[in-house]
């Protein structure tokens, strides 16, 4: 298939793998973080780690939209969905995320009107079709999905729709990366920058990572060869003792981002003073809320939202996994109490969550894989 197979070419992967191995200094261990959950998914889905020398460890970062939603916000969303005449609409990934009273799926099974949509514009369609209902869109995600939410709000405003609102949980990636860089428990050598987020914000927001923290950043695409090439670019910088921001995903990511998308976000949303991230705690200026002039589309103002902070189950170590301090299998409850069937933490829910990716695709040590496939 065109535009897919070229980026999954095994011969090219072998060649890159050899070049990466050649760049490893003897005795040195490298820890590279892929910030985005989409990368984590690709790495596991294609078995990319088989191409890496054992000196290189990929550390999975916080860029998974549903993984960072705290329990309290899920509870708030469930409370919204239970309001009279409300139709809650949500992306599929969100449906299984557990709050303290179960997930959207559980509420749906008990009769709450919760519908899965593929785009926020689908929620608008539902709102138009059901003028006597109040349709709420559960808006989640990083800068990648924020523009489509913003455009939807603008469309609703232009149409004068008065039965549509969003429950805004959009977050921004840079404060989370900064929180990880400032965290004392982790020493990273470089970052694979989030590709889709960068299509919107561009590459410049990462310059502080290279300048102030001395870590190289390569904004990477989502096909396996993209990631392998980006790792090579990081290793090249490390071997030369450099730290700059590079753009491997230049076929999609403009250096300055997408100004139209940024404008739409800026027009409809503004930064919250602080927002809770699952496992990472409160991070200042790390999330978006609806601007005052669009208040009639802000579900948090239209309905009474409990807004209670709910602590994660004690045994859940999602925070450590999201920061890359623990590997998924190092979490106390991984795979036994917490599985994709009965996820306790969010990292086990989304296909982009590190725990789900490892559980579903990678549940063998590299050593076992070699044994099984060469016999």
């Amino acid at each position: 298939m065109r535009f897919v197979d070229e980026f999954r070419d095994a011969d090219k992967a072998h060649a890159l793998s050899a070049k990466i191995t050649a760049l490893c200094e003897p005795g040195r261990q490298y820890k590279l973080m892929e910030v985005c959950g989409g990368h984590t998914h690709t790495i596991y889905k294609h078995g990319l780690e088989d191409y890496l020398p054992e000196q290189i460890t990929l550390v999975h970062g916080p860029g998974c939209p549903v993984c960072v939603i705290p329990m309290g916000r899920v509870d708030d969303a469930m409370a919204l969905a239970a309001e009279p005449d409300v139709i809650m609409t949500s992306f599929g990934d969100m449906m299984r995320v557990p709050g303290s009273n179960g997930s959207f799926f559980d509420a749906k099974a008990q009769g709450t009107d919760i519908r899965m949509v593929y785009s926020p514009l689908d929620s608008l369609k539902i709102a138009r079709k059901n003028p006597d209902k109040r349709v709420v869109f559960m808006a989640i995600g990083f800068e990648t999905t924020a523009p489509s939410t913003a455009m939807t709000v603008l469309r609703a405003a232009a149409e004068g729709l008065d039965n549509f609102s969003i429950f805004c949980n959009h977050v921004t990636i840079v404060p989370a990366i900064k929180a990880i860089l400032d965290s004392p428990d982790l020493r990273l050598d470089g970052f694979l920058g989030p590709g889709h987020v960068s299509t919107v914000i561009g590459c410049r927001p990462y310059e502080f990572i290279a300048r102030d923290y001395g870590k190289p950043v390569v904004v990477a695409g989502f096909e396996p060869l993209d990631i392998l090439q980006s790792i090579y670019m990081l290793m090249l910088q490390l071997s030369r003792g450099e730290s700059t921001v590079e753009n491997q995903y230049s076929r999609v990511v403009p250096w300055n981002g997408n100004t139209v998308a940024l404008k739409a976000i800026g027009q409809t949303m503004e930064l919250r003073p602080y927002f809770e991230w699952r496992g990472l705690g409160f991070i200042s200026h790390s999330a978006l809320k609806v601007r005052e002039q669009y208040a009639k589309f802000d579900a948090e103002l239209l309905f009474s939202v409990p807004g209670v902070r709910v602590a994660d189950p004690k045994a859940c170590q999602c925070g450590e996994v999201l920061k890359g301090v623990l590997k998924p299998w190092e979490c106390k409850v991984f795979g036994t109490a917490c599985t994709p069937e009965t996820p306790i933490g969010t990292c086990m829910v989304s296909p982009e969550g590190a725990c789900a990716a490892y559980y579903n695709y990678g549940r063998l040590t590299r050593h076992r894989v070699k044994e099984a496939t060469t016999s």
Partner: protein
Amino acid sequence: MTADQQNAGWVADALRVHEEQAREEEARGTRHGSPQPLPGTVREELVLERIDRARRSRPRVKEERITMSHGAGGKATQTLIEAIFLDEFRNPLLEPLEDAARLQIGEARLALTTDSYVVSPLFFPGGCIGDLAVNGTVNDLAMSGATPLFLSAGFILEEGFPVADLTRIVRSMREAADAAGVQVVTGDTKVVEKGKADGCYINTAGVGSIGHGLDLGVANAQPGDAIIVSGPIGDHGVTIMLARGELDIEADLSSDTAPLNGLVAGLLSATPGVRALRDATRGGVATILNEIAKAANVGVLVSENEIPVRPEVRGAAELLGIDPMYVACEGRLVAVVKQDQADQSLAALRAHPLGEQAAVIGQVTADPPGIVQLKTAFGGTRIVDLLVGDPLPRIC
């Protein structure tokens, strides 16, 4: 009991089980965080063993209510079947959980199966709920090696359902029955109030006769056996997803719904080396491979490059972020055959119009038991596990 309490209930339960296991491991000195930390790979192996034990423990439905996942053919469906149905009905005929039960009545060896059909939309490119209901049951019989003979048909109709649509559905059932060489010999009709059903649901049951000495079953798989699929996978599932019209994707695709008894008869007469047959419906080929690995306690290793998938299906699946391996087929089978008869089997399948694109996709291995591995087209290796529920599209 409130929702709050029940949820807290299962989390507490899961954590209690976890604590018990941790204590056991601590007693054996293998717990991570024990006084002398073990090397990373050893610790990882230990965690994986612990997970393996957890996966083999008695299945239990933790949810208070049925969710859509319970019907998706993945892990949740299996848990429901094993924890609720098998637990209560348990008997040696049901226990293998094959597509059809095999019965000995006097001299006769019979296969008996039943299946309900709730597809939406009722009409889709390549078929409708009617031929699906016949083909599905015919195929379940054929997979046990039986010659399908007689079918029953039960209809649950919603008040207000157009008679013209019902006529169309029943005609397609008759045509499918003719094509498969079976007769519908008994039936039932119920009508429910408007809103209590979605137009038309159909249940069919089927009886067939099993030839002498045949004993097919996924538990028969042995290391070295070849794994064959009879044609491109995922056509039906993707066709249905697109036919719902919610995705605004168009493709020139139609369902692969077809009776497989002719294909199976050709295969079984050409070679005695067939150990098991399964039709890859809900949960797709990935689910069948997992059933083989689990039932025979063997490993399964397949190669992504060898698995036939139409470009339209691959394209749609890429866009939606789903894996064709998990997408339903309605006219494809997976065969486990003795290694030395793989070529013969392949030739027999390819000689039939429904098996023209049959391919060997991998083999049964001794190790690691219970696990399906995929050699990716990219050249890496990963696990192919059962899905929990419906494949959900990625959001970014």
